[in-house]
């Protein structure tokens, strides 16, 4: 399936915002592909550029005066070059998005049904009655009980989980080929989160759409995604299939993320190894490898050399942007995986320790 032409191919995407304090390099040369029927998980912390890259795919950063370069090829068309009008015909139609906060994404003055009917009629030439029937059908599809009554309720009459279902229904109104879900479950409780994730999986099976799920929660991507891209400071620093990435993560930042979350089956004795420091400024990103100031394995020349995202030896689909030797990385992760601290791993593997 991965050999076929991708549904979406983002190439060398750069998004910059000019602000009073300087130019913010929100997305700094990002390349990824999404294939029909598959799920790509984009993982990163706040300010890693994961949301901005997706908003740009939908042309939603244009109004903010973003400076966009690179290509976003969707079904052979470069979305970056489309006019606002052409973009509007695609947005909500072939590509739809669901947002993190369902309360602020629904208009409080209008009935849920009216908002769904609008979403249908923007892209389809149907009568109000037909659109209303479609709205009821959509609410039923996403599992809202008694949809013919609920369609006439206002967003405030819905619970948080139901609002997110209504958002998903709206996104599905025109049977999109690609659904972008930006932190779709972050605002929800765990049992509701499980319901929504199961719903997305079912809809993907039934409708065959591709999904890009953006999240900071490694558990969510582990369960949902076929492929994973890890972002840091506006760049993808590691990408691979979910199996490869969790079986043998290659980038020290990915290791840091994995070792800083407690596991559900771990006991109290489990030691968390946080990543030192804080995420960098996107106005003045660090020189060389953007992660070097926080990386325990950083070498003096990592301050100067900017690593490229390259496939690792023996695994052409697993890409990583790290200056360490592949062999050294594998041995370091082997030590970390046994529960050693970064310092212990360094002394075991014999990397010259660098004091920051």
């Amino acid at each position, binding site marked *: 399936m991965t050999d076929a032409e991708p549904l979406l191919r983002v190439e060398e995407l750069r998004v910059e915002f000019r602000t009073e304090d300087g130019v913010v390099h929100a997305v700094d040369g990002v390349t990824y592909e999404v294939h029909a029927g598959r799920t790509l998980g984009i993982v990163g912390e706040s300010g890693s550029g994961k949301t901005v890259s997706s908003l740009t795919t939908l042309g939603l950063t244009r109004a903010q005066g973003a400076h966009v370069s690179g290509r976003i090829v969707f079904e052979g068309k470069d979305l970056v070059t489309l006019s606002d009008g052409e973009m509007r015909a695609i947005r909500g139609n072939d590509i739809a998005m669901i947002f993190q906060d369902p309360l602020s994404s629904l208009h409080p003055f209008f009935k849920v049904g009216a908002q769904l009917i609008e979403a249908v009629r923007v892209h389809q030439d149907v009568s109000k009655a037909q659109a209303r029937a479609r709205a009821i059908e959509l609410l039923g599809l996403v599992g809202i009980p008694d949809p013919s009554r609920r369609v006439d309720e206002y967003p405030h009459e819905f619970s948080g989980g139901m609002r997110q279902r209504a958002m998903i229904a709206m996104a599905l109104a025109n049977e999109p080929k690609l659904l972008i879900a930006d932190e779709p479950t972050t605002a929800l409780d765990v049992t509701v989160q499980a319901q929504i994730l199961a719903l997305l999986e079912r809809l993907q099976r039934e409708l065959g759409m591709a999904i890009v799920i953006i999240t900071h929660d490694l*558990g969510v991507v582990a*369960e949902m995604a076929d492929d994973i891209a890890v972002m840091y400071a506006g760049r993808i620093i590691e990408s691979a299939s979910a199996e490869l990435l969790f079986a043998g993560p290659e980038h020290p930042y990915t290791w840091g*993320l994995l070792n*800083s979350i407690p596991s559900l089956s*771990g006991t109290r004795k489990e030691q968390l190894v946080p990543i030192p420091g804080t995420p960098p400024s996107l106005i003045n990103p660090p020189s060389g490898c953007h992660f070097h100031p926080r990386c325990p394995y950083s070498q003096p020349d990592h301050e100067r050399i900017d690593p490229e995202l390259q496939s690792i030896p023996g695994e052409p689909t697993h890409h990583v942007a790290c200056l360490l030797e592949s062999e050294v990385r594998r041995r370091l992760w082997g030590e970390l995986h046994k529960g050693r601290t970064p310092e212990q791993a360094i002394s075991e593997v014999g990397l010259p320790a660098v004091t920051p």
Partner: protein
Amino acid sequence: MSALVEVRDLVKHFPIRRGVIIQRKTGAVQAVDGVSFDVRRGETLGIVGETGCGKSTTARLIMRLLDATSGEIRFEGEDIARLKGARLKALRREMQMIFQDPYSSLNPRKTIGSIIGEPFAIHGLNEGRGERRKAVQELMETVGLNPEHYNRYPHEFSGGQRQRIGVARALALKPKLLIADEPVSALDVSIQAQVLNLLRDLQSEFGLTVVFIAHDLSVVRHMCDRVAVMYLGKIVEIGGGDELYDFPRHPYTGALLSAVPVVDPSRHGEQRRLLSGDVPSPANPPSACRFHTRCPKARPLCSDQEPPLEDKGSGTRAACHYPLTREETAQIGVRSAP
């Protein structure tokens, strides 16, 4: 281990009023409805549950930020639920709270030095200017902040650093009890671990007793000796962390532990039992066992008779007529079981 805090039949109902001038009470949100538990000296007790289950209200009642409708809260043996005036103020030195949102819980117009020093000012401690500054800077060092940043304002700090400021402020008076209400849920993953490690280190250093409230079940397991699970204003299960996570007895605990997404691709696509529907309104909770409307094991008795919180023989106490068996926990895909 003796109990530092004993909570007995604690109830908090928020009245729902209708009318503009003449307000009539038309109902009550039963936020906390008959909760009893102990917090033992030196332990960390976790309280988990979903939005609206009453976990934060319980914390605020213990802190006396809210007044209980009825019930007892005993702190070192003394009932504090109705303390007033100077005695309440004295009590406040013994218990402190860390809040969820590190952005709204710090006054943006005050310097870090005066924010952390405020507890001293309130209680008239370390009166000399130089003396207070020294005490504050020591605290800043303890929580991993640079003491030279004494004169900076909150906006100059990142989320993780702000949460450290909140921790320093809470520790200023050397309290016996620390209540942390979702202390890391607003932080990024890499920063979360820093704050969690800090809290654990400080607990052993200061011998603190901690009540840790969170909705993230993995974080609670990592931090807590014992865990209480709340649903609609009631404790449905309480017990040792390992026992509760390895063998949950209440179907709601089982459902929570089955719902958590885990970083283990080998469990990808594993069968899970999803709870259907939403949490009912706490203004009009279901009769008897409040979970019976969503419970996969509910039988007629469950809507008829409220189950007591009792020992189920596996290390936890659960309020359930038909607790889960080993086979059932495996079936529903409880992701914490060994």
